[in-house]
């Protein structure tokens, strides 16, 4: 019997049917109907295709349905036993997992919980907020596999940072035998010529993995949104929690999906508003409806009794005279700005000034570059010369690059009415920064640390220019294990993959990375040492950095070193970070938020205003 399309549009063949295709017998595993064709997934049940899986398109391939043979057939005892063992092993109760047995995963009970919750109908929007390295990808993969096995997730969209697309595709393929397509401009350009005119290429993908920065693009978003996604997974969801076009795009996609999975190890940065924004991602609340609540899974290493020990070391670095002078001149410039702003507008410019202080904490080199650009703008006769133009993504069609680690623009608030005075102050600051950059105490401390540790290390910094400066300094100082590798937001996907591969193969010992480039990477098999050149203001970033090496499978004690400039505002930042961590812990336990949204401002006041913080004891809770 040849199979045809039924008049009601539903496929005449169904999962479970037996068919003959190209003279071999197959069982239909899955049928996906499209406008003019169907994608049929088959599993071979006769020699020579037994056990093979193939996908074909009807009507281009002809399927002949056959009935399951009736009666009883005598087989060898070996064969009988094999089938018996498999059947008994696959036998299970209602609402239990059908794909986990054959998945290439180590069975850890806590990793099964989210999939079980979905099957039990506990919720359709899940927040997996386990500690870094507890296998959120595996848990999400299980949910995908289970939903697809029940035909409840025909189309899955995984939104992830650009650097993690290949890692996701690999994990889904190797662990769950699911083919997922990493989608970017290049992949879509390859796919389009093979499709009929007018077909949205996103609708032809069962599991698509795309970067958030690619999906949010004005020319890309409409075609992604036009596709009905059954399951949307947002990896590193904290990155889309704040009000931004990223959040708008992700929320618009997730709000139309039957299931939403939010993955982040750092859901709360101490700011309750941001946490609530994260939790509301993908809500489809409308008048007169009662949507199931967000189901939260939050397990620590202690909860699951897993993971290596972690030691946090705060290394207080004594600044050189040139560096101290640089900080002093920066403070002087800040005082002048604040005095004028207070007189004119009635408020301080702490937030704007904090940009310069962040640069100074990162490296004298990066501050020198920022101040140098400002001086060049002051010297220019063109009044618009200091207004840097936003870059168009013309050189980044695939959405690989990010500017999150690029040098920040000079804040518009930071200018004095007396241009000559401003020029004078900034010139002094620039020359002191240039002098300090010749021998930076943090970089010297880093070199000592790497030499003494004598093992692989990942060094994090916030800015790309600082990263390049460290690379040059370490190259001059003949760093152990060869010249360091670099990961930053200006590198394409292939370049990043090659760097990670080289580091994983033990080809080089030192990896320099910015947060923007290293998010989500698994480096624990290669390394256990993380060095933070400066403290990020957000505790989530700190946790994300250490989480690159502190993951399940790490056999050794993890060490994280924070280089903190003595006599500056950095010890105060450390104390405030600790308070934010405490606030986040309290809030996830439903306690009131004692910090609130004014934290950034108070932190800026602390740094730019040079206020003393009594709690700056240099320790960080492990």
């Amino acid at each position, binding site marked *: 019997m040849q199979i045809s399309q039924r008049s009601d549009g539903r496929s005449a063949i*169904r*999962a479970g049917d*037996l068919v003959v295709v190209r003279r071999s*017998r197959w*069982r239909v595993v899955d049928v996906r109907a499209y406008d003019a064709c169907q994608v049929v997934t088959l599993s071979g*049940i006769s020699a020579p295709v037994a*056990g093979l899986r193939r996908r074909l398109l009807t009507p281009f391939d002809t399927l002949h349905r056959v009935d*399951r043979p009736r*009666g*009883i*057939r*005598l*087989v060898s*005892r070996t*064969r*009988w*036993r094999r*089938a018996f*063992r*498999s*059947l*008994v*092993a696959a*036998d299970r*109760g*209602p*609402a239990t997992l059908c794909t986990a*047995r*054959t998945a290439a995963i180590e*069975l*850890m*009970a*806590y990793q*099964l*919980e989210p999939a*079980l919750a979905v*099957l039990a*109908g*506990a*919720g*359709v929007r899940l*927040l997996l907020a386990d500690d870094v390295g507890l296998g959120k990808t595996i848990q999400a993969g299980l949910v995908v596999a289970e939903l697809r096995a*029940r035909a*409840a997730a025909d189309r899955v969209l995984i939104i992830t940072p650009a650097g993690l697309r290949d890692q996701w595709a690999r994990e889904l393929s190797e662990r769950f035998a699911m083919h997922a397509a990493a989608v970017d401009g290049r992949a879509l350009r390859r796919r389009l010529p093979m499709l009929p005119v007018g077909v949205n290429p996103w609708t032809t993908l069962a599991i698509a993995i795309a970067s958030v920065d690619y999906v949010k693009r004005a020319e890309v978003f*409409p075609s992604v949104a*036009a596709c009905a996604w059954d399951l949307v997974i947002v990896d590193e969801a904290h990155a889309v929690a704040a009000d931004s076009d990223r959040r*708008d795009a992700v929320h618009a996609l997730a*709000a*139309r999906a039957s299931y939403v999975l939010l993955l982040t190890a750092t859901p709360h940065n101490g700011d309750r508003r941001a946490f609530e924004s994260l*939790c509301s991602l993908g809500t*489809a609340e409308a008048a007169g*409806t*009662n*949507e*199931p*609540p*967000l*189901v*939260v*899974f939050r397990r620590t290493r202690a909860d699951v009794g897993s993971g290596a020990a972690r030691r946090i070391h705060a290394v207080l670095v004594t600044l050189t005279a040139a560096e101290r002078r640089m900080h002093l001149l920066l403070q002087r410039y800040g005082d002048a700005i604040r005095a004028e702003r207070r007189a004119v507008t009635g408020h301080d410019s702490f937030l704007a000034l904090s940009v310069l202080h962040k640069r100074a904490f990162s490296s004298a080199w990066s501050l020198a570059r920022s101040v140098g650009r400002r001086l060049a703008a002051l010297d220019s006769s063109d009044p618009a010369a200091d207004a840097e133009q936003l870059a168009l993504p013309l050189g980044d069609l695939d959405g690989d690059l990010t500017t999150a680690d690029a040098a920040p623009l000079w804040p518009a608030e930071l200018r004095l009415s007396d241009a000559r005075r401003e020029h004078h102050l900034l010139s002094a600051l620039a020359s002191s920064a240039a002098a300090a950059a010749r021998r930076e105490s943090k970089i010297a401390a880093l070199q000592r640390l790497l030499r003494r540790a004598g093992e692989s290390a990942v060094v994090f910094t916030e800015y790309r220019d600082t990263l390049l400066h460290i690379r040059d300094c370490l190259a001059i100082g003949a760093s152990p294990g060869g010249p360091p590798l670099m990961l930053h937001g200006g590198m394409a996907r292939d370049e990043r993959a090659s760097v990670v591969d080289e580091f994983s193969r033990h080809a080089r010992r030192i990896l320099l990375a910015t947060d923007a480039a290293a998010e989500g990477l698994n480096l624990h098999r290669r390394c256990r040492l993380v060095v933070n050149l400066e403290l990020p203001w957000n505790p989530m970033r700190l946790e994300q950095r250490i989480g690159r090496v502190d993951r399940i499978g790490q056999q050794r004690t993890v060490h994280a070193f924070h280089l903190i400039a003595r006599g500056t505002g950095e010890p105060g930042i450390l104390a405030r970070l600790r308070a934010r961590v405490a606030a986040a812990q309290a809030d996830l336990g439903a306690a009131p938020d004692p910090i609130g949204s004014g934290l950034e401002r108070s932190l800026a006041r602390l740094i730019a205003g040079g206020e003393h913080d009594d709690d700056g004891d240099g320790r960080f809770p492990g």
Partner: protein
Amino acid sequence: MTMVMADFRAEADAEATRLTRARALTRAGDDEAAAWLDGAAAWMATARSCHVRRAVGPRVVMLWRVAFENIDGAIVESQLVAIALASAASGRHRAGRDTLKHIIAGVAPAIETRITAVTADWQWRAHEAARAFAAAQTARRRAIAAQLAQAPARQFQPGLFDRRAERAHAHLAEQNADAAPEHLTGALSSGAITLRRPQLLLVLAP
């Protein structure tokens, strides 16, 4: 916004134990053999080793599968049922293979009825599980459909001479109008499961 901290530790522990046992039971090639069986007639083998023969005695042991399928024909829940059929003949007077096949074919309808009866409890639990699974999905889809129907005209700021934003909005509104009934239809059909006829898979003859 409401959220709940989930605790499925007990279920997960039980599931991990079951899966560990299931993995320990199977060897390479077992699942391929079961896949072959899926498209074949029931397989019969005879008990040869002493302890199996002692355990089976004069009985014929059959393994049946009872399953629920969803609207797309995919098996969503299944259960194995072992049936032992007492045979009066034993020793040298054992029934031949063809005789056994005839006997089994003759009693199969009665066995199917019996299996349907003895699995009533499992069927109820499977129905409940499917209902709970579908209920969450249905609530979500209803919410999406309602939200699409009420979609506000925002996110677009039309330019003075640029009608692209306006057209894009009209296109989105059209998409929403198409998608809303689709979500409602999906919501209504997502929980439907039907019981398949019990299927004989394996026979162990004395």
